[in-house]
Every structure is written in structure tokens, then in C-alpha cells.
């Protein structure tokens, strides 16, 4: 009997090669050491998917994992992690989605689903509480994510079914394919949809009608209420609630932090046409929320007229407004929404897809690409017809789209002729709309993140626009003023390390980083520790929780180390370290990466030569098996 509440206490092991589904008991030691979600997936990947396994081989694992707070009363506890070796980067990969899929899985009585093998023909996994089976998905293959979800709901005659589906991009092996989860939320990054497609798994459909138990009812209720009320009183709450992530478009632009033309600039002259006000005036229908979220940063948008009239979608985020807008020198808001909808339907990560096209447009500008190579497409800045056409070509792996579908790093290598210097990626991962020159902590975060360039692992929000009050509360008066200054490098290695460790925990318990933990900077270590304790019944002092975060992050680093990653890979594109930003507050700035990295390794107690955790550090974290595998 599983000793902890908050968990369902069991998970599903799906062998697609054999067409079998098995029930597995949740290991209490795994829960104690890794919590769930991100930690659960990291541990399984470490144990079962070594360097000899290609990300898209049948032996590769695809892991959907919730955490002990997912589906509970804690605010914005609706997140689910997807973990697999990334076919885009070849190293540790994960993606995280909000919405309702994760909680539904818990209500069905499952903490996680681990998928291995490859089905001889397309299938989907049907989970109706404790009835679980693989079903034929032949008729669904080739269809968009929204069509697939609708078809399964029709077949089950139940509009409450929650799905995780791939689109044509995942089926066709586009290396940055997403998994779309009810309702139109994306597990976008690292090509998790590509892994799903390689297994012949079109969808996971879940309907759960059971309860989630917690250990200490009175304490858990009191904590949950307190956290809800604190979020609602947070000074940032009204803006995030009203505008969601698009609200930061107007904040980032004057900072020179709004990447334009593939990071050539950090401000976009026509930003007012694609900011939150413009978006809401043009297309807002209503405000929406994910499961259990009092903030409700999500919105439904619909285009009433124009060339894309009738386009209706939710989850239009800051990242997509940039990737499909300023990044490709376009202020055509309608086209951004059309591109967003197309990506969601095709199952494409809007960030990597938009970045790949921005990169190609810069190569066109620099005359590195010609019409022969692009198949007759002139990749002019701001041409939204080309943008939309290319997205479709990427998803179908047609013509020039087939090259971009390999990801920016690979495309640059194939093109050659100096294309690499314009490829804005780290470890093969396209950089999101987060210019490190305008926020130094973000520069470091891109270099150190375990899934390649990434704003969401460390998620250093404190110095993004400057949160001095939150900085003081979290790190003490002595960290000011630098901690809240975007251009200062002092204290930032600590901010990044703390964010990486805390983020690993947040992604392991199943709550949202865009909610109370990072964007509002309201919920922190003591709050999560108390909530985990009350929900699960585990003894969870803050010190122990921090050790878990560190353990997960270090094990991911070890995973990357056995895949050949060293300090030499913790670097940034030349544009960030040598080309001063021309824009806004960041004018004249570069990322001073080396001094920050040096301090970061010290704080992490990693070997500064290799960038690997030391044997002593690993022993401290109870990762003796990693010492052996890294031969330390």
C-alpha cells in the first residue's frame, strides 16, 4: 500500500510494441527522493534511456507525469510534465502543459503514464478510470490535434474527455513537434510530440471520475485558502489576470528585450500593433482559466473579419506574438493568430517553428540562401504568406520546410557558408523571446539550462523588469539593488541556480510557473514544502525540499554529461556575447557569460573544468550511481 496521499499511488506502463498495458505501483522511495512529475521522469530517463538509445528509437521512453499537488486545491495546480530524450537536442528533454489533462489523469487514478516501444499501426491510449486499453487510431492518423480531440469525444459521446494529441508534425517526425492538451494547451518544447509520433501513438484520452485524497485535511485546506488569497492580493495579479503573458510585450520592448529580426534588435518599431491592448481590442472573446487557477491568464480570441476571419483560439502567448511577429518583422496581428492556430493544429512548437523561420529570413537577407535552395520562396522579412506557407511545409516536411523541420542547429550545418553564426540556439534548442543582453540572468539561464536554451528552467523573473520587493523578501536586503537590476550580473548566478532548483520542484509537484511561483513570485520554498507536507503526509522541511530540487537538477545534468555535454556546451550564440544590443535599455550590452558561469559552477559545486557535478556533490545528494556512471 502506497503510504502517501496526494498521489494516486500507481502508474501505467504501456508497451506499444507488445500492445500491452501494465499497472505499476508507485515506489515510495521515488516519491521521497523525487516527488513526481519532472523528478519522476528524470529518474526513469536516467535509469532506462542511455546514450545508446536514439530519442526516436522504440526503446526510448515517453513519460507523462503529474505530481502530488496536481489536481488539488493549491492554486494553479493543473500542470503535467512530459519527459523524454529530446530528438531536437539529443539530450534531456521535457515540456510542461497546463489545462485539464493532468488533473483528469489523477481523477482517473493514475499518477503517470510511461510509454515504451513502437506500435505496428497507429493507436491511441484510452483511459476511463481504471479501464485502460489501446485502441486503433488508423482513422485519426493524419488529422489535426483539434480534429483528433473532437473525434475521440464524439466516439465516446463525452465532451468532458481530456486528450493529449499530436498533429501531422509529430507524425512526420518534425523535431520540434508539440503535444497539444485539452484545452489547446501545448507541451511545446523539446520535440515531445516527435517522440510520441515515432511510437505510433496518436493520442492519450482520459476521463476520470474519482477523488484525490490529501493527508491533513484541515491544514491543507487552510494552506490552500491562504495561497489563493495571497495570489489574489499580489500586486502583479490584476495585470496578469487581465492580459496574461501578452501583457509583457509592452514591458519588454523598451528594455530592448523583445527580439526582433532573429535577435538583430531588441525592440520592434510597430510593437503597439501586436501588444496585449491591440490583441484584446481586435479579438478578445472571454477570459479563461486552467484547472484551479485564480489568475486566469488564458483568453479566448476570435477574428471577426479579414483574411483569416473565423480563426478562433486560446492560449495566445507572449512567445508566439514575438516568434510569429517581431521575430519575422511582422506587425500583422491577424497573421500571428492564424500562425498560432496552424501550429496548434499541426502540433508544432510555436517558438522553435517561428525561430527557425526568422533564422531562414536572416539568411535570405544576408544572401546565404537563394531561390534554388528555398524551392522558389523569397524569404523576405515580414512576408506573412511565406510565414504561413512555411509552417505548413515544415509540418508536412515538404521542400525547404523539410530542412527547417530538423531544427535550427541541424539546418545551419546543412546550409553551411557561415549560417551557423545566425543560428540562435543553445545545445540545439531555439532561443525563446528572451534576449539575455537585456537581462543578464536570462543570458546565463540559456547557457546552463538542462534542456538547451530555455527561459523556463531558471525563470529568473526577479530582475526581468525589476521586482525589488520580491527580491528583498526572497533573498534579503543585502542582495539589492543589483538583484532587481536586469543589466547587473552580481548575484545572478545565485538567482539562476535557485530558480533551476525551485523550478525542478515546481514541475515535480504539478503547479504552474506562470502562476504564483515565478511570474507572481508569491509562492516560494516554504509554501511548497508546507503544501507537500499537508497533502502527502511526508515530513518535508524546506531544507529537504531544496535538496530534492538540487538532486533532480543535478541528475539531469548527469544525464546530459553521459550524453557528452561539458562546460564547452554551456555557451551562447556569438550574437549574445560579442554583438552589442542596439536597442532600448540594453543598448551597448552583451552577456558577460564567463564570469557568471564561473560563479555558477562554484555555487553548484561542480567541476569548473568539465562543468560536471563533483563526486562529493553527488554523494551529498544521494546520487552514488551517477558517480559510478560518470566514472568520477
Amino acid at each position: 500500500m502506497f503510504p502517501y496521499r496526494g498521489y494516486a499511488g500507481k502508474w501505467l506502463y504501456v508497451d506499444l510494441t507488445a500492445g500491452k498495458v501494465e499497472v505499476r505501483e508507485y515506489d515510495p522511495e521515488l516519491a521521497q527522493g523525487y516527488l513526481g512529475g519532472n523528478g519522476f521522469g528524470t529518474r526513469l530517463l536516467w535509469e532506462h534511456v542511455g546514450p545508446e538509445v536514439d530519442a526516436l528509437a522504440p526503446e526510448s521512453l515517453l513519460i507523462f507525469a503529474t505530481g502530488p499537488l496536481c489536481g488539488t486545491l493549491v492554486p494553479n495546480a493543473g500542470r503535467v510534465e512530459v519527459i523524454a530524450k529530446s530528438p531536437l537536442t539529443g539530450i534531456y528533454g521535457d515540456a510542461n502543459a497546463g489545462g485539464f489533462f493532468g488533473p483528469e489523469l489523477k481523477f482517473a487514478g493514475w499518477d503517470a503514464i510511461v510509454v515504451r516501444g513502437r506500435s505496428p499501426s497507429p493507436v491511441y491510449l484510452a483511459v476511463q478510470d481504471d479501464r485502460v486499453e489501446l485502441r486503433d487510431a488508423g482513422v485519426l492518423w493524419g488529422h489535426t490535434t483539434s480534429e483528433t480531440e473532437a473525434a475521440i469525444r464524439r466516439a465516446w459521446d463525452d465532451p468532458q474527455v481530456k486528450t493529449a494529441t499530436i498533429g501531422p508534425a509529430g507524425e512526420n517526425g518534425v523535431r520540434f513537434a508539440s503535444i497539444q492538451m485539452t484545452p489547446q494547451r501545448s507541451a511545446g518544447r523539446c520535440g515531445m510530440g516527435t517522440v510520441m509520433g515515432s511510437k505510433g501513438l496518436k493520442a492519450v484520452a482520459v476521463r476520470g471520475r474519482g477523488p484525490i485524497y490529501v493527508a491533513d485535511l484541515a491544514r491543507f485546506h487552510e494552506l490552500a485558502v491562504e495561497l489563493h488569497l495571497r495570489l489574489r492580493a499580489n500586486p502583479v495579479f490584476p495585470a496578469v489576470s487581465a492580459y496574461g503573458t501578452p501583457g509583457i510585450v509592452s514591458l519588454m520592448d523598451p528594455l530592448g528585450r523583445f527580439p526582433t529580426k532573429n535577435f538583430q534588435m531588441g525592440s520592434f518599431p510597430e510593437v503597439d500593433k501586436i501588444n496585449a491592448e491591440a490583441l484584446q481590442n481586435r479579438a478578445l472573446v472571454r477570459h479563461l482559466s486552467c484547472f484551479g487557477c485564480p489568475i486566469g491568464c488564458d483568453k479566448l480570441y476570435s477574428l471577426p473579419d479579414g483574411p483569416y476571419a473565423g480563426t478562433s483560439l486560446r492560449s495566445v502567448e507572449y512567445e508566439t506574438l514575438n516568434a510569429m511577429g517581431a521575430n519575422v518583422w511582422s506587425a500583422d496581428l491577424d497573421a500571428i493568430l492564424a500562425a498560432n492556430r496552424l501550429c496548434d493544429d499541426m502540433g508544432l512548437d510555436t517558438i522553435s517553428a517561428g525561430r527557425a523561420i526568422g533564422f531562414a529570413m536572416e539568411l535570405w537577407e544576408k544572401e546565404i540562401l537563394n531561390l534554388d535552395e528555398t524551392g522558389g520562396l523569397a524569404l523576405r522579412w515580414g512576408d506573412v504568406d511565406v510565414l504561413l506557407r512555411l509552417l505548413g511545409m515544415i509540418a508536412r516536411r515538404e521542400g525547404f520546410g523539410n530542412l527547417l523541420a530538423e531544427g535550427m542547429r541541424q539546418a545551419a550545418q546543412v546550409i553551411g557558408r557561415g549560417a551557423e553564426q545566425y543560428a540562435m540556439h543553445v545545445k540545439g534548442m531555439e532561443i525563446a523571446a528572451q534576449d539575455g543582453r537585456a537581462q543578464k540572468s536570462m543570458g546565463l539561464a540559456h547557457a546552463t539550462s538542462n534542456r538547451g536554451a530555455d527561459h523556463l528552467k531558471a525563470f529568473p523573473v526577479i530582475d526581468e523588469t525589476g521586482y525589488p520587493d520580491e527580491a528583498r523578501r526572497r533573498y534579503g536586503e543585502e542582495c539589492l539593488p543589483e538583484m532587481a537590476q536586469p543589466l547587473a550580473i552580481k548575484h545572478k548566478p545565485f538567482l539562476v541556480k535557485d530558480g533551476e532548483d525551485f523550478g525542478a520542484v515546481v514541475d515535480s509537484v504539478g503547479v504552474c510557473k506562470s502562476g504564483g511561483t515565478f511570474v507572481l513570485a508569491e509562492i516560494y520554498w516554504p509554501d511548497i514544502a508546507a503544501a507537500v507536507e499537508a497533502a502527502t503526509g511526508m515530513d518535508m522541511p524546506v531544507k529537504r525540499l531544496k535538496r530534492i530540487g538540487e538532486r533532480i537538477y543535478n541528475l539531469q545534468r548527469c544525464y546530459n554529461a553521459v550524453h557528452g555535454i561539458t562546460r564547452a556546451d554551456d555557451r551562447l550564440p556569438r550574437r549574445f556575447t560579442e554583438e552589442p544590443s542596439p536597442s532600448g535599455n540594453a543598448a551597448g550590452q552583451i552577456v558577460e557569460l564567463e564570469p557568471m558561469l564561473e560563479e555558477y559552477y562554484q555555487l553548484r559545486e561542480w567541476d569548473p573544468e568539465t562543468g560536471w557535478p563533483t563526486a562529493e556533490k553527488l554523494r551529498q545528494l544521494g546520487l552514488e550511481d551517477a558517480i559510478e556512471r560518470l566514472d568520477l
Partner: protein
Amino acid sequence: MYLEIQAQKCTGCRICENFCSFHHEGVIWPQRSRVTILAQGDNGPFVPNVCRQCEDAPCALACPVGAITLHEPTEAWVVDVEECVGCGACVEACPFDAIFLDGERGGSLKCDLCRGEPECAAMCPTGAIREVV
């Protein structure tokens, strides 16, 4: 006391269902929530549906064993689970679909205004469900 619904403010977050079920069942169990979000698809519009605490409660009138009675201090109609025989007459009688049969235990479930401190209203972040005294 009654609960006032302003449906246009509902974002479909289901905080009301989660807290309702926790209050009544001690678990998070939307399936057993007394308040239900009715939705036209994932993106709404949404309508929180909950007992209106009618003055001439059809559910109480329909109950053959008198298991639904008025709790004077809160003016909430409350099901006595010991008396309830699970016949479903109240479910048939309710014009608002705001009373349900508990499939497992056989009794009927309805809002009792949490005996005076309705959790759904306290926790609704948008004011879509408000307590009116």
C-alpha cells in the same frame, strides 16, 4: 442567504467544484461537487449551476420521506442523508438540475450553503458566485 450567479464572469477554472467537494467529502472530487460548471465546450461560455434555495422548494415538496428540510439560520434546504432513500423524486422535481443522485451511496446531493459559509463564493476569484445575505 443564497448564491448569486454572474455567469459572464466565470472563466471555467473549477475552483468552486474543487472546494465544494473538499468541504463536503474531504477529498478533491469534482464528480461529487454540489456546484457544477455547465460549459458549452472547453472555451465556454460557462454557467455555474447551484441550488437557488427556492422559497417553495420543489425538491422538498417532492420528497416522499421529508428528508429535505429548511435549515433556518441559513435558509438553506438540506438533505438528511439518514432519511433519504435515494428515490430521485427531488432530482425529477428540481427545475434547475441542481440536485443529483450519488451513484455509489444512493442518496441525493445538493448545496447546503456550507451551513452558512459557502466555500464556492469565498474561493471564486472572479465574483461569478457571490454570497447574498
